[in-house]
């Protein structure tokens, strides 16, 4: 299980900019709607 968690950690690091971009774009959409 420890290996699997480490693997997920690596994947988060790999996709950090994708996640950051999605958060960012979603926030911009929310602010625009408001």
């Amino acid at each position, binding site marked *: 299980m420890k290996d699997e968690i480490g693997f997920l950690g690596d994947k988060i690091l790999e996709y950090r900019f994708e996640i950051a971009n*999605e958060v960012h774009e979603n926030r911009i959409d*929310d602010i625009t709607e408001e």
Partner: protein
Amino acid sequence: MELINIRAHFIILFGEVLRDYLNEERALQKFTQWGKETEEMFCNLKVPLDEALKDTKDYRTFLWKILKEVIKGNNLSIDTVFEVGEIIDPLLDHAAYSFSLSYVHFYQLTLERAQSAFLELSIPVVPLAKGMAIFSLPRIGNIDTERANYPMEEALKSANRLQFQRLIVDL
């Protein structure tokens, strides 16, 4: 772009906690430190606290979106899913808490500095001639304890600094 880099940096913390399998105490310290480091940055970027806190929901949603894809794509165990949930969700809550504390602390300091500058400007000691100055007491607004103490302290400091023997107090 700067904000996206800040967000990516925040996400890195989760990746590192999982990758290095940090214990709860070290993981929380990491996020507390992050809260302290980013308070000034967020305040300077003029991001209101309520707006910054709204991000928490989106981080949770999009972190789990990626995790779900990876977990399903690699047939990871259900135990791993629960374990990761028990790590990530409290960390997100802690990050929001640490950030709020740091943000309010920084905001309070900024207000105190502004108040101090305001006092200095509102109660000026103006040199009139050699050894003589005029001291104008405030006439606008409420006189609270701090505002009442300031003229006494400032008069003595100014007397020392400007070496005046006579002080006219303008009431």
